[in-house]
């Protein structure tokens, strides 16, 4: 076991946690914003995937990493708006529409890559580069902290700023205030003259932007190319973090960080004798238990209020 401890306590591992957690943190914040606006965004996965693909392709063809990142985020925003429109204008079920958008992203990205590059796997043939790392002067001289923070990607820094940003947005701005009211009690919001739909569109656009950033990081930070279906279920895990974190920015932050840490640990343990797949199930099992406990508690509390006999 001491070898496990050695791994966990190494600064390389901590740096890996930050890197691995980045997409979870961003996507989970995106999921949180949508959820609090009253529309479940199960399309996080598709938004990340589309952004990752668009980012790598645009960066590769234009030679500009910034243009790639912007294009990636823009596509994810569009998908967010599309989900909102399907829900709000066409009466679609948000979950099923989200599944449809995920399919669209999965097929669309693979089709685009194959059509443009004649490559089934991804864009590794295209030189698209990565987003720059942040180097803070003097930080590398600090022991441990320097090792952990130095050379982290810009998006990783953004990911860790996302939680305070969303918290600030929710609790300190008029927009966030309206968004929370709209998501919790649309009738009350409408009765005081808030344009409920407009707020929901804006919320879903922001949700898409955050998920898009997560996707851009995957293909332009984590690695420097797009691989087919490279999100590998991260969007769904992020969604679980939203619920596990109790729909609050810092709770979701911790849950997403936990998922990231567990995955990083699983990767590290792959070099040792512990089966990494089993380690990586831990956060999901915990989520499942937490979900049950949370529901049980709410039911107990609710039971005191109204007690329909047969439920």
């Amino acid at each position, binding site marked *: 076991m001491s070898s496990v401890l050695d791994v966990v306590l190494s600064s390389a591992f901590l740096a890996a946690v930050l890197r691995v957690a980045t997409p979870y943190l961003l996507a989970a914040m995106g999921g949180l914003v949508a959820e609090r606006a009253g529309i*479940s965004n*199960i399309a996080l996965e598709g938004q990340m995937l589309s952004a990752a693909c668009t980012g790598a392709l645009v960066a590769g063809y234009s030679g500009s990493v910034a243009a790639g990142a912007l294009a990636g985020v823009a596509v994810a925003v569009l998908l967010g708006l599309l989900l909102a429109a*399907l829900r709000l*204008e*066409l*009466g*679609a*079920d948000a*979950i*099923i*529409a989200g*599944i*449809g*958008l*995920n*399919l*669209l992203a*999965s*097929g*669309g990205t*693979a*089709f685009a890559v*194959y*059509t443009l590059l*004649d490559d*089934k796997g991804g864009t590794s043939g295209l030189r698209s580069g990565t987003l720059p790392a942040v180097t803070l002067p003097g930080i590398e001289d600090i022991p441990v902290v320097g090792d952990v923070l130095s050379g982290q990607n810009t998006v990783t820094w953004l990911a860790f700023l996302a939680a305070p940003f969303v918290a600030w947005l929710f609790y300190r701005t008029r927009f966030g205030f309206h968004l929370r009211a709209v998501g919790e009690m649309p009738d009350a919001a409408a009765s005081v003259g808030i344009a409920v739909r407009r707020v929901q569109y804006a919320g879903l656009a922001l949700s898409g932007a955050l998920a898009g950033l997560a996707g851009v990081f995957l293909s332009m930070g984590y690695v420097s190319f797009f691989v087919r279906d490279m999100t590998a*279920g991260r969007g*769904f*895990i992020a*969604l*679980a973090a939203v*619920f596990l974190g109790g729909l609050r920015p810092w709770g979701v932050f911790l849950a997403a960080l936990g998922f990231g840490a567990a995955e990083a640990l699983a990767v590290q343990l792959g070099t040792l004798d512990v*089966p990494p*797949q*089993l380690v*990586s*199930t831990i956060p*999901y*099992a915990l*989520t*499942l238990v937490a*979900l*049950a406990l*949370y*529901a*049980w508690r*709410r*039911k107990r509390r609710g039971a005191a209020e109204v007690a*329909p006999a*047969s*439920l």
Partner: protein
Amino acid sequence: MTTTLIESEDRREYKATRRRGLVVDLSMTLATILAALVIGFLVMLATGKDPIAAYEALLTGPLERSFRVGRWLEDATTLTLLGLSVAIPFRARQISLGAESQLYAGALAAATVAIFLPLPPVAAVIVPMAAAAAAGAGMGFVPGSMKARLGANEIVATLMLNAIVVRVYDYLVNGPLKEPGSSAVHSEPIQPDSALTPLTEWLGIPFGRANVGFLLMLLTAVALWLLITRTPLGYRIRMTGSNPHFAEYGGIRVPRAIEWSFVIGGAVAGLAGAHLVQGVYGRLEPGLAGSLAFEGIVVALLARNNPLVVVVAGLFYSYLRAGGDIMEQQTDVGTEIVVVIQAVIVLLVTAQALPDLLKRRLARRQAGTSHKRSGTSDKRTGASHGKADAR
């Protein structure tokens, strides 16, 4: 949404309206598929491909050779079972996304029995399948009872179970169940007696890996249709999905109906796993199901959760998948366009207000054109008169 009152007591008139309604629904579905195909056509055109050649391969390819037909039927079997597995909880208005975990649990159970448990010939086929159904049912019971008894969100619960089971499966295939001494990652093959008989053997025509599982799938669909329409449990599931307050008021135990819908769906998804192990691969392979589990949801949606229609939708959907592969081999269009087409179908189907919107627009236009038409028909009769005169 406005509903029209049906108060007339003329049964013949009502039946005529109902037939008309059915035709409208059917044509809506066809229009949806057609619209999706048109979008695919445009995408190909926009990306500089030859859409006509591509669609020719896509739409006629799967029927050109018997082994291609076999590939289609084999794929349709798994996909339809997965579609059926979500259609049942959907009938109780439960959004179960757990087909993936149920399928893998079923595959593991079927493989374990079929590899390690020596059984007499017929039992060697049936027992692994029963084990798979039981394992899938168990995997459905967990989120089902969490939802029914505690009110825990079934979407999150099923997604978490998927994540867990997929990883455990991966571990088992890479570890304890990996074929000893083999360099490839897969399990030992199942005992020959446990294999589902290939259709090739029966029909004497090369049918690829298509097997008796296809017939079992058809039987399952009929059984589920009977369950939903002809049993008290099916009635309870339907009423629970339609209006849980009404079901409770009528004396139905709503939580139990919800649980059953999950358990039945899980068992069917487990069978899909057994089909992959005993009929298709003959062993456990990593990533056995691919993206099939989510595509099952599409099939169920397209079929509006009617088990018999799920078969049609499953066959259609697999046909597109099979055609996509052939299209990719024969032209430079990637098979992924099929996924795009499928996605467009889902989005169009879920946009529930869309048909109403169209219907209203149609009704308005009809009201407008009926005027015009009566005008033009007058003219036409006038013209034909003129012609007759001229003659």
